């Protein structure tokens, strides 16, 4: 829990948003996926998405993605006001088709990775990352 006055006031301002947790996939995320896939079907699996169950710090959440034989991977934070995080493109000389980064999450939401595979098909993985006030562990 958050209890200093300054933090409390800061968090209080965000309370209106936090009460509608968890954030859902918004239209912007769907649009970004459609733009990336050109509307093609996306299969579940075939992408490894490494993300914590609960973020230790919502301001910098470590995320890793990899997909065997991918030519590109789109990474989205579906609940952020601007869902797009990154698109990683892998050329034919790429030693591995994996990438990792740290992202900021506005609240509990799904992080989504879409991989474009060498045969032109698309694969998808997603994971809910919880962003919590924390503070009451036993």
């Amino acid at each position, binding site marked *: 829990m958050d*209890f200093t006055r300054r933090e409390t006031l800061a968090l209080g301002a965000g309370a209106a948003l936090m009460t509608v947790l968890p954030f859902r996939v918004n239209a912007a995320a769907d649009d970004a996926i459609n733009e990336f896939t050109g509307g093609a079907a996306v299969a579940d699996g075939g992408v490894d998405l490494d993300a914590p169950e609960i973020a230790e710090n919502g301001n910098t959440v470590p995320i890793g993605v990899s997909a065997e034989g991918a030519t590109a991977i789109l990474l989205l934070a579906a609940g952020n006001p601007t869902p797009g995080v990154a698109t990683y493109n892998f050329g034919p000389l790429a030693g591995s088709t994996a990438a990792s980064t740290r992202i900021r999450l506005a609240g509990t939401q799904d992080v989504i990775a879409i991989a474009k595979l060498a045969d032109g098909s698309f694969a998808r993985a997603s994971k809910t990352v919880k962003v919590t*006030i924390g503070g009451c562990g036993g």
Partner: protein
Amino acid sequence: MAASAMVGASGFGNWARLAAQQSLTQDQLLQFDTFGNVSLIHVTDIHAQLKPIYFREPSINIGVGGNKGEVPHVTGADFRRLYGIEDGSPSHYALSSGDFASLAQAYGKVGGLDRVATVINAIRADRPDALLLDGGDTWHGSMTCYKTEGQDMVNVMNALKPDAMTFHWEFTLGSERVQEIVEGLPFAALGQNIFDAEWDEPAELFKPYKFFERGGVKIAVIGQAFPYMPIANPRWMFPEYSFGIRDENMQAMVDEVRAAGAELVVCLSHNGFDVDKQMASVVTGIDVILSGHTHDALPEPVLVGETIIVASGSNGKFVSRVDLDVRDGRMMGFRHKLIPIFSDVITPDAKVASLIDEQRAPYKAELEEVIGTTDELLYRRGNFNGTWDDLICNALMSEREADIAMSPGVRWGPSLIPGDNITREDIWNVTSMSYGEAYRSEMTGEFIKVILEDVADNIFNPDPYYQQGGDMVRIGGMGYRIDVSKPQGERISDMTLLKTGEAIDPSKTYIVAGWASVNEGTEGPQIWDVVESHIRKQGTITLEPNNSVEVTGV
């Protein structure tokens, strides 16, 4: 190992039947037909309780999702029926709630590391190369532990000669102090999920696992520290470290030790019981999980797939002995006993007893000063409240002139029975921590709801991997209704300010006092001083029954 080929037995029924005879003896508590070729001894969540104490188990411990109605979410009479425990028996007193105060008078205090030492020595007499494994939450929870920054516990535990340990509250000593102690430990400090926060690589100070050769068996012990340390406790105290469940890395470690010839894989875990169950269903190849964190005491292991999960209670109240038959690289069977440390029945080990007194000597007068007496049973465990936290919330509201008080839903802290003196030590036993400042703050009704929803989801999220293993934040001065079956944001309703009977107004500001903020720079007097001042004024503690939380959706 095929589950069907595995033979298991637990020995608790033996001492349960001794109730009628009123003849509990040390020999009976320790009676165990040595089995197989390997013995594990598990202690966990001691919370710096060197001396015998009372500890009341919870009467409310709600399970959700797949764990609804499953152990450890079975309490009181239901728990006794489930395990065939007679009412009024020693097992009733040790393992379940109900009639606690009168049974406490009959059976006396529990725990005390000098008694634990006697039990460990007796097991080692049967099996000299038994492995002693400490599940963590050892260097936290008392005045002497606070004042010596964990040194009292380190000194006494070293005398018990553990083989390995994992961690949780230890990190609230601050990373520098943790490093100082860990570098000097004469046993392994393990945690496959303790990572360097900056590089997201395994932390150098903590090894993921250690190999032991016991009874001709190659044993790998893999550590699993509390996954949510930087969330449940102040991150700023150990910024170098990152945790998480990291079950993929756990699988990698299991595969690595198996490839290196491990015939038995033991996970020394501080995950909490439901998280351990889930991890056991995801990770293959672990034979035994010694489970800590959620303070559950179970008289039999729980089997998930081919993994047995052993829960050994808290506060020095129990020692688990697990004998294993390992042959041809496989665990073929087990025999288990959760040994309750009845402190009037088990003779203290003289050497450890004097070592304990040595640690306490410099603080003896401070510890023993009587601050007040209690007419109430004072206990903490329960999902929503306990009388200790009722008292702490009353102290916060009156001493800090607040409308509403919040006390963290931790599960440590021994009990007192009616008629007991309340000493300064007793107050520290339920409040001691390195971030105990009691803040006084303004919060809107809306923000208070956000806090309750957030904490409730840490307990009642149906996916155990999203649970942190504590209890609900305790609230003084305010009532509410909670539907545990709903998702976050919809569980809490009918918030009421008790002193006026009015509904909490989302836009109105309330004065809230609390303690144990995870924020750096929190200001206020230490909570133990606030509580001491309140108890001194009250003299004798009496409490109104707390009916301010209405629970539905169970």
